[in-house]
Structures are given as structure tokens and as C-alpha cells.
């Protein structure tokens, strides 16, 4: 059988491939059946951020980035969460000069002051589950107050890579807690090991972490990673489950549901499933979950978007994430929309 010796490499290559493809297919079918958000189909446009293994640790940063500024980009799972005990952000360090040099925005300028009914979104979608017409459009009438950074001391920020950015550049690392990971989605939120444990190498899930620690405020921003799979309805179904579970785990906490941050108009028009229209649709539905007693809806988009309704192009490099120096806008917005704890 001399020809086997001659061709063994090709034979090995092709047979391994056959096995691989069959397994992939089976896994695909299974994954689709269970409505999992995991991408991986060769035909599906592999998301801008792929949960992969849901943000599991270390340097397993995924590549395959379709664009430093472009088509389906995978931020992959960077694996680290800027938790409170992580990173050495030091306000005295050379970096922290708000508005130094090239601050082309000015908090006092063109800023948005919390005025009733003045938000960029439609007040008709106020009341969540209270179902009472009187509660409609109350978001604009919620008596938000402005607070200092220490308000966040007993808060937790849960989200995807945008929240990671807030953690890295918001200057809150020492004060508050971040359970955030690139690629996080509502489907993986409770089961992905993204929360670092101090002194240990392993990470635990958000579910476990929320069972161990009590927070008074929960900030949640999720939704962009799920846009590649399922529908708005399937997303909202899961989202509501998430919110319900958060209520169970942290019954006394205020929950701030943050509207999904928009992308630039250019990014939105790229032709994949990430569009501002889709984001807007989801935000409208998310805002309906707010009851203005324990659950509030906050949408930072009016402050960071341009006239066309997309993220201001100069605020971002890739059309999706705010540059470090503009994260302050978001943080300031959150500080100005705090609900007093009674």
C-alpha cells in the first residue's frame, strides 16, 4: 500500500476535516435548537463581539477581527474584568486630568440637564409592569438627583465591553464593582465565569457573585451582542428573565436598566445585523420594563449621538466603543440620574 505512504498527509488532513465538519454541524444544530447565543456557523456573520466561551479567562483573546473599523469584528473574550480589586487606577497619576489638552467637550456646554420629558426618547414607553396609564412617561418625571462618585460605592455595573470601557476609563475602579466582560450577553450573563475572586486565579459567575455580595444599585447594559441571533422577542424574553433573577438575587437593590448604547451611523449602515434601528427597537422594549420604583430606565444615547441618531463619529474609533476621554460623559450622565435610596 505504497500510495498510503505517499498520500498520508492529505488523507489525514481530509479525514480530520470530515470529522471536524460533522462535529461542527452537530454542535451547530444543537446550539441553534437551544437558542444559544453562541455564534460559530460558517454562514452566520460572526458577531462584532463573540462570546466564544463567555469571557473565560486569560490571554485567550480571540482574533478574526474583521475591522479595526469595519465589518464583523470580534472583540472576543478579553477575559478580564476591571473589578474593584483590580487595576491600579490612581487619581493622582499623570492621566487623570479631566479636560486636559484636547477636551473638545465641556460638561457645562450643550450638556443635557435633566428636565422632565426632555429626553431623547419617547415618553410613551414609561410604565413597565405596573400597567397603570398614570405611570406612562414618568421617566422624564423621575426626581433624579446628582450624586458624587461615592454613590457608586455599593453599586455593581454589569455589562459587555462598553461597560468594560467604563470600568477602565471611568475612574471608578477603586470605588465600585464591575461585572463586565467583552462579549457578554443576556444568555451567558449568569453562567459565564467573569468575576475575579481576590487572591484566587479562578473566576466565578455573576450568579455566584451576586449571591455572595449585596449591592444597593445595579447598572445593567446588555444587548448588542445578542443582535446576531434570535429576534427582539427572544432577546426580550431572556432579558426579562435576567431582570427577574436580579430582583431575586438582590431584592433591595435599585436596578438601572441602561439603554443599549448606539453605534455610529456609519457602523450601523455596514450591512450586518448591528443597526441603530435594531438598537432603538430593543431600547424601547427595555424601557417598558421600568416601573420607576425599583427599576429605572436610563439612556445615555442623547448625549453621545449626533443629529442623525448615531454615536458621534469623533467620539469613537471603531464606531462601537467610546474613546476613553468621552467615557466621562457617560459617567457624568449616570451621576446626574441617581435615585435617592430611602
Amino acid at each position, binding site marked *: 500500500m505504497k500510495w498510503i505512504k*505517499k*498520500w*498520508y*498527509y*492529505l488523507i*489525514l*488532513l481530509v479525514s*480530520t*476535516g470530515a470529522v*471536524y465538519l460533522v462535529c*461542527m454541524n452537530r454542535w451547530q444544530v444543537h446550539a441553534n435548537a437551544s437558542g444559544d447565543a453562541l*455564534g*460559530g456557523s*460558517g454562514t452566520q456573520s*460572526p*458577531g462584532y463581539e*463573540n462570546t*466564544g466561551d463567555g469571557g473565560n479567562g*486569560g*490571554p485567550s*483573546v*480571540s*482574533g*478574526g*477581527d*474583521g*475591522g*479595526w*473599523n*469595519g*465589518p464583523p*469584528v470580534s*472583540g*472576543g473574550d*478579553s*477575559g*478580564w474584568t476591571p473589578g474593584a480589586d483590580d*487595576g*491600579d*487606577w490612581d487619581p493622582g*497619576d*499623570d*492621566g*487623570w*486630568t*479631566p479636560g*486636559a*489638552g484636547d477636551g473638545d467637550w465641556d460638561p457645562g456646554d450643550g450638556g443635557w440637564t435633566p428636565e422632565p420629558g426632555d429626553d431623547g426618547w419617547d415618553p410613551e414607553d414609561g410604565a413597565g409592569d405596573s400597567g397603570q396609564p398614570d405611570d406612562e412617561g414618568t421617566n422624564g418625571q423621575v426626581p433624579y438627583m446628582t450624586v458624587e462618585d461615592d454613590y457608586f460605592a455599593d453599586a455593581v455595573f454589569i455589562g459587555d465591553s462598553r461597560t468594560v*470601557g467604563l470600568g*477602565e*476609563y471611568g*475612574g471608578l475602579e477603586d470605588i465600585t464593582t464591575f461585572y463586565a466582560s467583552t462579549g457578554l450577553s443576556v444568555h451567558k450573563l449568569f453562567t459565564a465565569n467573569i468575576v475575579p475572586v481576590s487572591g484566587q486565579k479562578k473566576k466565578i459567575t455573576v450568579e455566584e457573585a451576586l449571591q455572595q455580595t449585596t449591592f444597593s444599585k445595579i447598572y445593567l447594559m446588555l444587548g448588542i451582542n445578542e443582535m446576531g441571533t434570535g429576534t427582539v422577542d427572544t432577546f426580550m424574553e431572556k432579558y426579562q428573565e435576567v431582570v427577574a433573577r436580579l430582583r431575586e438575587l438582590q431584592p433591595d437593590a435599585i436596578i438601572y436598566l441602561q439603554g443599549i448604547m448606539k453605534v455610529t451611523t456609519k457602523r450601523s449602515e*455596514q*450591512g450586518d445585523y448591528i443597526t441603530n434601528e435594531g438598537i432603538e427597537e430593543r431600547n424601547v422594549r427595555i424601557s417598558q420594563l421600568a416601573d420607576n420604583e425599583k427599576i429605572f430606565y436610563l439612556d445615555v444615547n442623547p448625549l453621545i449621538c449626533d443629529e442623525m441618531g448615531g454615536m458621534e463619529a469623533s467620539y469613537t474609533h*471603531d464606531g462601537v*466603543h467610546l*474613546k*476613553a*476621554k468621552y467615557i*466621562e460623559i457617560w459617567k457624568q450622565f449616570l451621576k446626574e440620574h441617581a435615585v435617592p435610596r430611602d
Partner: protein
Amino acid sequence: MHDTLSLTLEYNSERCEYMVFSSIGFLLFFLPLFLILYGLTPDKYKNLTLLAGSLVFYALGDPRFLFLLLLSVLVNYFLGLHLGRKVKKKGKDDLQEIFDLDIKYKRSKRQGKRRRLLAAAVVLNLGLLGFFKYCARGDGIPLGISFYTFQILSYLIDVYRGDERREMSAVNLATYIVMFPQLIAGPIVSYGEVRRALKSREFTAAGLQDGLKVFTMGLAAKVLLADRIGLLWRQAQIAGFESISTPFAWLAAAAYSLQLYFDFYGYSLMASGLGRMLGFELPENFNNPYMAVSVRDFYRRWHMTLGRWFRRYVYIPLGGNRRGGLRTIFNLLAVWVLTALWHGSTLNFLVWGLLLAALIILERLLAGIRLPEALRLPASLMSHVYLLAVIPVTWMCFAITEMDQLRIFLGRMFGTVPAVYVNSGDWRNALADYGILFAAGIFACTTGMEKLFRKFKDNPLGAVVLVGLFWLCVWRLQTEGQNPFMYFKF
């Protein structure tokens, strides 16, 4: 802010995925199908199959300019025929010439004609390239035009000089220029390197499998190294250059340096592997550039086919280093300005080219210094350090197309620009996340990687590893999407 990459990818965003080697479409559909067809084609028609396949490959990526490519090949084929027409030497053969007093005049007239024809050909081809690169905005550059233009020119000049005989077969010439392993992003193959193979070559089990192995190494370099370490560079861009710490800036520059290398080297390996599968020995493009001891040495190891093109067709004709020091400086500047223009139309490329020229000139001036014996070893070590410090800085000039952004990034590297909203722990996170990739990348920069490959590729263990690598890459591509090769813009 746009750098080369994002420009490339904006351009690529509407493109079909097939034209990228590191894509599912190519790996699982185009390549196997093509190889089967090619294998089934009888030997004398194999060029035709390769040509047809390459045109399909091109059309899948850039249908708009397929016609231009074909036209270009055809026109240059005829130009080659004319330029290659033998100019009779001193009348050894023709009896009549002994009596023809006009012979010298006629010959010089013919020479003049040939020279003018070459000049016209050069202007035509370069003009087309220049037009698309510098004038035609918005619509994008025809895929691969920078590469195939230079390849065509090398053929024409070689034929004119008499270094090569003209290719009589239009199919063969077209195959030489258009064949898909090297059409999009090089290597810039000289006609002499493939002339024989075009006429007759073998499609063998050994060649096919060996080529697949080399191809796999290139694929892995791109998908597993370049694409992933590139994410660190991307992080710097996303944060905004004003918001990175100085250590992070250096790490990001190093990441970009590695990414650019493995991306391009990976592509060149894939091209080489594909060539080998088909029976061609394509030239190498890289020779462990990061092991160089000077910038001059670096560019004898980086994108070698482009370097030799400029040396053969610009530097040496201008006189090289044989016309005195001042002329040498001028020649070097000329070559580097042209190199910069070839790479891109924005100002930063000119900065890049001039910086490199300055460094090389400086190195030449210092080269004459004789060091005492005791200082030789430390000097040798220092030269490596010097190179590894300087090259990433030059790559930043290459990577960042907006001058203001470049100023900010370089300022962050050297601490001359104040940081805004920096997370001072950013570089620690970066090391934690990318440390392993850096280590792997550094190892792969040394000759160690090649030695390993050569040692193991022919034994069963190596086979298993390579097969595993291949399908790992496929899996990666399926789950993460693809990252078009950075040099496609060119």
C-alpha cells in the same frame, strides 16, 4: 481616525470573503475545488486552468476591475513582444549587413525606438497605478494593482534589457501575472523565476502535501498570531491614543509590529505554499527581519521581493553606491520616497520612508567606525536592541495615517504629550492578557520556528500537529470571522 487597516477594511467591507486566503470560502470551497480541477486537467492545459481559476478568484474579490486586469495583461503582452524582438548584433549572421553602411544608424534608430517603447510602457503602467492610488478616491483601488503593476514592469524591463526572453504564449504570460497565489499581495515574482515552471512543471503528491504544510504555517501565523495580537493595537485605538500610558504605547507598538509581520509573512507563506502545491517555487519575502542588526539589514530581510525590485530597477540604474557618497544619499532617498509612495498616498508614509532613509544613511556613515575588540560584543548586542526599539517607532509612522494622531501616539511613547484619562494599570492588564502571545510571537521571530518546522514536517508527529493547526485555524475563522490581510490596500 483611519489607519491603513481600517481603510483596507472599509474597502473590503462589501467584498466577498472568497478572495482572502484565510477565509472559509477559500479554504473549504475554492481551494479544494480548484485543486481537484487542476489535478484532473491534463498537463498541457494546466496553465489554462490556473489562469481561469485565478480570474475567477479575482472576480470573486473585485469584479469591477477584472476587465482592467485582463486589458493590462494583454497590452503588456504585446509590449513585451515588441520589446523582446531581437536587435541584431554586429552583423555576424547577415551577409547583407556587411555591405549596409546604414546599419549603425538603423540599429541606433531601433534602439531609440525600443527605449521609447519601454518608456511608454513604464509611463502607462505606472500612470495607471498612480491614477488609482492618488486620484481615484472613493471607489477604491483595483485589487492587487500595486503588486501586479510592479510584476509587469519587472517583466518588461527584463525583456528590454535582454535578461529574459519574451514570453510568446499569451496564456503563459497571463498565468505568470495573474496566478492567484501571488496576485493579490505578492511576492513580486520575477519572470525568470517561473519561466521554466510555466512551460513544464509537475503536480506531485510530495509537492501538493509539502505546499499544504507550508500553507498551514502561514495560515496559523495569520489566524493564531497576527489576528490576535493585533487586538492589543486595536485596544489602543479604541481607547484613543491620548489615553494610553507610555508602557502601554510601547506594548501596542510592539503588538502592531508583530501583527504586521505575521500577517504579511503568513500571507507570503500561504502564497509560497500554494505555489508549491502547483509546482512553482515562488521567492521568499521574509528572512527573520526582527533578527536584523540595523535598519539597513532589516530591509534586506523584510518584503524582500519589493526591496529587490527597487534595487534592480531604481537603485542600481541610478548608480547605487558607486557614484560617490553624495550620489548614494540621493539614490537612497529616491528609493525610499518611491517606496513610501508605493505603500500609500497619505503623508505619514512619506514620513515613514524619509525616517528610514535618514536612519540608513546614518548607519552607513557610522559603519566605517572601527570599534576596539572589547566593545564588539556589547555593540553587537546593542545593535539588536537599537533595531527592536527603532523599528516599532517607524511602524507607527506607517500605521497611523492622521498626522495629528501620529503626533499624539509618538508623544505618548516618549512622554512628550500629556495623557488624558489614562488608566495607569492598562499595561499590566495588557501583559497579563497578551503575555503568552508575545512570547509565542517572539519565538516565531527567531529562526527557531523554521528549524522546528523543517525538523518535524515530514514525520508523522509533525503531520498530526500541522493537520491540527489547520483545522484549529478553520475553527477560529468560523467562530471569529476573518481579518482581511492588511496589505490588500496595496
